[in-house]
């Protein structure tokens, strides 16, 4: 069985196990949707009062909101295995068993849990997307749709990498790191608005250091026809940084696994 087939098998098992408790699953799905959609309602309330933010209207911000939410939901659903890795695998020594299997350890952890409930988050992104499209009534070419999908893919890859790096940290801390939320959840929260509304240092941080903006700001602004100061070709290429980041995260993962010391139980 090759890696991809193995991964699909993992996801299948995870989905089936979640479906064994349908009421609990629906409750989680519903609550995620309610919690997240209410945040979007908050954005509407702000625009109802202020009309625009530094030249951006509600419909445009809704598109940023949608791409950030969808990218994050995908990454969140795929990366749950890394979330509880510290207490469940590292602290207990169960990570030994992962190492014994003749498969990539990163793949095994990714497949440990597929969070179907992140569909609730995804639904918020879908609502924001429908609102954005409904209000903007764009004459979108296939190229623009493709660019948006590419932007979401780059963003998802970046968020996934951040989650993975958080997992690597747990080789040393054996606990989850609440501080890592500043980049994952915080990054999503920041990318829900066009980055040029923020202070310059913060925008630069999100463009050059943790390049969330490369995937979720530059290309989306290009689709909306806003000038960001970056040339169009750069905005089109920018989401590739999300995948480059994944490469860095994988290297960091290998480094972390190399430093894993079993608790020997």
């Amino acid at each position: 069985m090759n890696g991809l087939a193995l991964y699909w098998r993992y996801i299948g098992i995870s989905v089936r196990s979640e479906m064994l408790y349908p009421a609990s699953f629906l409750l989680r799905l519903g609550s995620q949707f309610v919690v997240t959609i209410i945040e979007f309602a908050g954005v509407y309330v702000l625009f109802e009062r202020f009309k625009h933010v530094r030249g951006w209207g509600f419909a445009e911000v809704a598109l940023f909101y949608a791409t950030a939410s969808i990218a994050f939901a995908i990454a969140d659903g795929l990366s749950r295995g890394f979330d509880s890795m510290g207490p469940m695998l590292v602290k207990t020594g169960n990570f030994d068993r992962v190492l014994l299997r003749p498969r990539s350890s990163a793949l095994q952890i990714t497949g440990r849990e597929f969070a179907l409930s992140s569909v609730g988050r995804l639904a918020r992104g879908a609502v924001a997307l429908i609102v954005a499209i409904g209000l903007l009534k764009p004459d979108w070419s296939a190229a623009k749709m493709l660019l948006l999908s590419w932007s979401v893919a780059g963003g998802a890859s970046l968020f996934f990498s951040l989650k993975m790096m958080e997992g690597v940290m747990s080789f040393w801390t054996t606990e989850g790191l609440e501080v890592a939320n500043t980049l994952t959840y915080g990054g999503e929260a920041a990318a829900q608005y066009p980055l040029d509304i923020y202070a310059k240092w913060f925008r630069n941080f999100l463009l050059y250091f943790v390049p969330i903006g490369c995937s979720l700001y530059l290309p989306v602004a290009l689709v909306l026809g806003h000038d960001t100061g970056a040339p169009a070709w750069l905005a089109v290429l920018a989401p590739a940084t999300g995948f480059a980041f994944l490469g860095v995260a994988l290297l960091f993962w290998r480094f972390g696994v190399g430093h894993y010391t079993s608790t020997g139980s």
Partner: protein
Amino acid sequence: MSTLALPYLSVLRVRFQLMLQYRTAAWAGVATQFWFGAIRVMTLVAFYVGTGQQPMNLPQVVTYIWLGQAFLAMLPWAPDAEIAVAVESGNVGYERLRPVDTYFLWYARALAWRVANTALRAGPVFILAALILPLTAMADWRWRLPTGGAAAALFVASITLTALLSSAFTALLNIVLVHVKTPRVGNFAMGFTNLFSGLVIPLALFPHWAQPFLLWQPFAGLADIPFRIYTGALAGATAAQGLASQVLWILLLVLLGRWWLARVLAHIDMQGG
């Protein structure tokens, strides 16, 4: 009176000491809250650029956001974790054996939890946002002190009521938990709590027509009312209304909780063990 209250007071004290053990987790929480606060402040600063007269001015809104981050642990997001475990294991039945009022026992536990958690987190957020931030280039985004002695005194009264109100909410969540047996009950409530307590957007920025309703709904007392009193956005007669709204909801929720818990515990099923 004092002997009657003794069991509840000792629960309060023990839980408080227990919570204070988790200082590292609290520091991590503070860093996260400061960061999220900063993002929220930057967003609202951007909205305020070039805008006209608003119900709250920018310094008030910025201070309000910092207060929200400092008192985040005050919000009743989840039922009591230990009671959640007890519900799963069936140990919740023991609660019936204790010679104390179960509702007030749970209430005291919740109060200790909220207050200890807040005490741990509010101070550091204050140090970062009110004392260190003014020394940097971002001094405009600092947490400002209350406008006057009256606002400060009323804030202390109001935030005390917030702790009492939040504990009543937590006790209710515990009761729902006994009913449905999944600790996720809090999640549904969380969305409404966040929006209607003013945590997502200060309630004063909601449309004008919604304001009377917003002041009198139960979630306002969890954050918005004390914060608006602190910043001076709620003063005089409206401040009195805000406090009245808090007191009213505390009484209603405690009565509802006591009545409901009595019904739930009368029908509790236990499986041997």
